[in-house]
């Protein structure tokens, strides 16, 4: 196996968490986590349900802001800027950091309108530009061939796997640099899952991808680095090959070998 050249360590990490603690009211959901994520990598967060993986993921695009009682300590830096500073505009942040959800959630509009949504809210009105971006995004999301003659068809008429690829296209059209995925394939059949995993593998060269997954084999197949979360703590975080062949922590070993959780 070729070892991917690791000159990325010389550059600043794309995403950086420093001493992060998260509370929902009195409940502490994230305990003192620090980690760095490099550009153009796929990082997987694994761990049992309710252990903070999704919460931590949503810190990167501040989607936790909408939850009652959410409170955060520490720093989350993207491109070396703390995104929780008061002057940060959340809407601007989310143009750089896109998100794909577990259950595909296309808008009840046409395929075209779905993909163009992000551009519309930015105020882009030039139809030629929108057409181009829509086509590029659909091609990147491996949906163009199936969609190009049906752009005005309702998005809800697509199959589950197609809808999820549409949601990915929708995110890509905004041209973010980071894509967050919260269990993107857990609601899909195996063939759709494989297609999306291949897609993630291709997207890696242009984006930084962080994916929460319940499926350890998926983490093994597509990620460069993996973080194991348990009860709000980051137990182990390293190169995926090393984590899966020689984890240092017994909890990690037990989890990945299927002995608990």
């Amino acid at each position, binding site marked *: *196996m*070729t070892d991917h050249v690791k000159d990325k360590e010389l550059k600043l990490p794309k995403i950086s968490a420093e001493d992060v603690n998260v509370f929902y009211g009195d409940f502490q959901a994230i305990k003192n986590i620090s980690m760095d994520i490099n550009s153009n990598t796929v990082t997987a967060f694994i761990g049992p349900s309710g252990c903070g993986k999704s919460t931590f993921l949503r810190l990167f695009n501040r989607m936790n802001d909408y939850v009652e009682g959410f409170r955060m300590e520490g720093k989350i830096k993207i491109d070396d800027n703390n995104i929780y500073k008061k002057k940060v505009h959340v809407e601007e942040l989310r143009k750089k950091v896109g998100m794909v959800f577990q259950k595909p959630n296309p808008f009840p509009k046409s395929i075209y309108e779905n993909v163009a949504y992000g551009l519309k809210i930015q105020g882009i009105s030039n139809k030629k530009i929108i057409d181009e971006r829509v086509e590029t995004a659909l091609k990147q999301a491996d949906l163009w061939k199936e969609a190009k003659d049906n752009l005005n068809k309702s998005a809800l008429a697509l199959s589950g796997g197609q809808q999820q690829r549409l949601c990915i296209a929708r995110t890509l059209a905004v041209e973010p640099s980071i894509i967050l995925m919260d269990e993107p394939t857990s609601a899909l059949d195996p*063939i759709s899952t*494989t297609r999306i*995993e*291949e897609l993630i*593998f291709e997207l890696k060269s242009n984006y930084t991808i962080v994916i929460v997954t319940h499926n350890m*084999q998926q983490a*093994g*197949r*597509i990620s460069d680095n993996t973080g194991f979360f348990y009860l709000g703590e980051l137990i182990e975080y390293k190169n*995926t*090959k090393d984590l*899966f*062949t020689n984890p240092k922590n017994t909890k990690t070993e037990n989890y990945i070998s299927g002995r608990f959780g």
Partner: protein
Amino acid sequence: MDGLAKNLITMTNLDIELKLLKEAIIEMTDLVTNQVVNANEAFLSMDTDLAYEIQHNEQKINALELSIDRDCEHILALFNPVASDLRFVLAVLKSNADLERIGDYTYAIAGYVIEHNKSINKELIEASQIIAMFDTAISMLRDIKIAFETEDVKLAKKVYRKDADLNMINKQAADIISKFLEKDGTLTTEALYLFSTIRKLERVGDHVKNMVEVLIFYVKAKVLKHKDIKDKKK
């Protein structure tokens, strides 16, 4: 992969890793074959420079063996391959070990050349049929490489049968060499080196035979171990 599967599934990450693994084991086969070719030349012309080169190359072979082992471990851990993919990784793992042993034997033969450093009696060489042994061993290695690349079971079986020749020569060697020594006792040292080399070459054949068995296991999911060759012809 059959045609239908090819249409449904494009190259996955796993396919890429398996392809690289195959290239690595082919490279390993090439390196080891080269060592045997060099050992052949070094032994017959007692070329100590070439012998040193063989021993030096051994490092590269060992490093490649470790790398292939590690790659197999990673593929198993990260991808949980099943069916033919799993059999392939297991085949590579085993062939890797066999090739490394063959490398060890060439190292030893080079060692003999360096130690003896004198030409060996030509009639003794001819009588022992060691030249035929070297040729057979080299052709077996070359053929198993092709069989592996093209997954050619028929060719692999041919290789398997050639091992019988090596075994035959090895069996006769003791007699032939002792008869020679009865006539001329001064040849003892070189005869011993010759005999040791013959032994090593016979084991080379055994290891190539192992590689045939794992190749057939991979391609046909059939186990040929511990069976008589006559059964395999069916």
